[in-house]
Structure formats: structure tokens, C-alpha cells
């Protein structure tokens, strides 16, 4: 759901005055964006929902810290990315992921399955199979660049990493994925 910049500005101002209705508008506008990013990073529906909840709780608490020199979506992305990164780094989460099935990727490429017929769990498995060997930081950078189509400058703002570090992470991530795809 797209929100007009002026409406967003009003909603932020009203939310700072504890207006729940205004904050609900913000949540409804950015919920899908956060869920999509979280799903692509944590590859799990319930975990992605937890990330969405945690993200908006932090947005509510720290809204006064938002500075207008940054796009609001970038700021929200930054919060969500940090939460995902913490999840990806946790040993428990890495253990739960287990081994991914690579045959799903072949099915996806050969177009045996139409996109709209894919289940969430299947797509999660495909993303997991593709990115499970990447480090959490590489995975985050890769997802932001290739799945979310963000420019490096915006990824710098979101992750706080330098452009050089982001580019090197992207290079390594692509190298791993290339090796993986060529092995097939």
C-alpha cells in the first residue's frame, strides 16, 4: 500500500502525539514491505511475522529518533534488517533451518510450476537453498540488492556498512551462488 508523503508526514506527527489511528495507517502501509523482506531473509512465515511485530514495536518506541534526511521506508528497512540479522546470527535459528532441498530451484527454473501456484513454504525452501551457505551479512546484503532491488547507497544507509564492504559481500555472495548453480 502506497502512502502519500504528506499523509505519511502527518501520520508520523500524530503518532508522536500517541495517536494510534495514525500509527495504524503507518503499519498498514509498510507491513507488507517488512513482511516480504523478513520472509526472504528468515525463510519462515511465523518468524517473518515475529520480525514484522518487533519492527513496528521498535518504530513506535523510537519514532522520535527518525530524522527526515532519510526516507521513512529506509529507516523501517534498517530496523527490520537489524532484527533479521540478529535472528540469522542466533545459533538456534541456524540449527532449525537444517538442509535445504535444491531440486526446488530446478523446478522453478524449468517452469514446471507457475509462480502463483507456489506455496510460501516452497518459496522459502528455494530461497533457503540458494542462500543458506551465505553468512548473515552476505545474505542481508544480497537480499536487499537482488530481491528488494535497492541501490548500494540505500543499502549503506540501511546496514551502516561501507559501500566497499557491501560490494565485497555482494561479490562473495554471487560467487557462492554461482558455484552452487553450476554444480547443478
Amino acid at each position: 500500500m502506497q502512502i502519500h508523503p504528506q499523509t505519511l508526514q502527518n501520520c508520523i506527527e500524530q503518532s508522536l502525539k500517541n495517536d494510534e489511528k495514525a500509527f495504524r495507517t503507518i503499519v498498514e502501509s509498510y507491513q507488507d514491505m517488512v513482511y516480504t523482506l523478513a520472509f526472504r531473509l528468515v525463510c519462515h512465515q511465523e518468524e517473518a511475522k515475529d520480525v514484522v511485530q518487533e519492527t513496528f514495536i521498535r518504530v513506535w518506541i523510537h519514532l522520535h529518533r527518525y530524522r527526515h534526511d532519510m526516507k521513512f521506508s529506509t529507516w523501517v528497512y534498517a530496523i527490520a534488517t537489524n532484527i533479521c540479522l540478529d535472528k540469522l546470527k542466533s545459533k538456534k535459528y541456524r540449527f532449525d533451518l537444517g538442509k535445504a532441498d535444491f531440486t526446488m530451484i530446478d523446478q522453478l527454473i524449468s517452469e514446471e510450476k507457475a509462480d502463483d501456484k507456489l506455496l510460501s513454504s516452497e518459496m522459502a525452501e528455494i530461497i533457503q537453498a540458494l542462500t543458506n551457505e551465505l553468512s548473515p551479512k552476505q545474505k542481508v546484503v544480497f537480499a536487499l540488492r537482488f530481491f528488494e532491488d535497492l541501490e548500494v547507497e540505500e543499502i549503506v544507509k540501511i546496514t551502516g556498512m561501507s559501500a566497499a564492504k557491501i560490494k565485497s559481500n555482494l561479490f562473495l555472495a554471487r560467487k557462492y551462488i554461482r558455484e552452487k548453480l553450476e554444480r547443478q
Partner: protein
Amino acid sequence: MEAYEHKFSSVISKIKQYQPEPEDAAGLTDDIMQKVRNLPRTQAPKTLVWFRVISGAAAIFLVGLFLFQSEGSEVKTTNSGSALLHFRKSGIDSACFQGTKLDESNLLKTYACYLKKNTIENNRFKNIKQTSEN
């Protein structure tokens, strides 16, 4: 190489096309609002700004006080140690008390010498000089 590029871009575009949606989006929004409702909103900024200003000013004052005190204590140390060092620190020419021992040095005489050397004389000084000579 080309095969890989094709495979890579094909997988990426398929993933991008797929828009995952939470099973119950409205329910998720309600859950968020419910949690937010029970959260105390931090009103720290204004208090924090004042706290920072006051603590910053206090820190500067304390550092200044420390520097001032340590300078004072330095003079005290030299006073009790060597008269020569003290006068050197205070800018009085050492020629005024050359050859005199510390316990024999007369501060007023030395000061008078210093003033004479610098031709600084006033009525008050004359009175002091007379007192010392008597």
C-alpha cells in the same frame, strides 16, 4: 558463464515476482496495535537534551576546577622545595637571589630587588622596604 547468468537472473526474477503475504494481514496489524497500546512511550528526548547540557556544563566546570587546583598545588610544592624554582616560575629574575640559601632568603628583599631591576616603585613599596630594613 552465459548459462549461469541465465539461471541466476531467472531464479532472482522468480523470487522477486513472488510476493509473500502473511496469512492474516489484518490480524497481524491488530496484534501489533495491541502490543503498541500496552507499551509506555519513551518521552526521553527533552529530558535527555537537558540532562546532556547540564552534565556537559558540569564536566567542563570540573575539568576547569581540576586544572586550576593542580596549578595551585604546583606552586605550593615549589614553594616548599626551592625558592629559585618558585621565582623562576613566577617570572622573577634569578639574579636577585643568586648565591643565597633557601633558609636565608628574604622574600621581601628579593622582591625589592626584582622591582628595582624593573624600576617599579610606588609608595606602598617604600613603606614595606623601610619595614624590612628596620
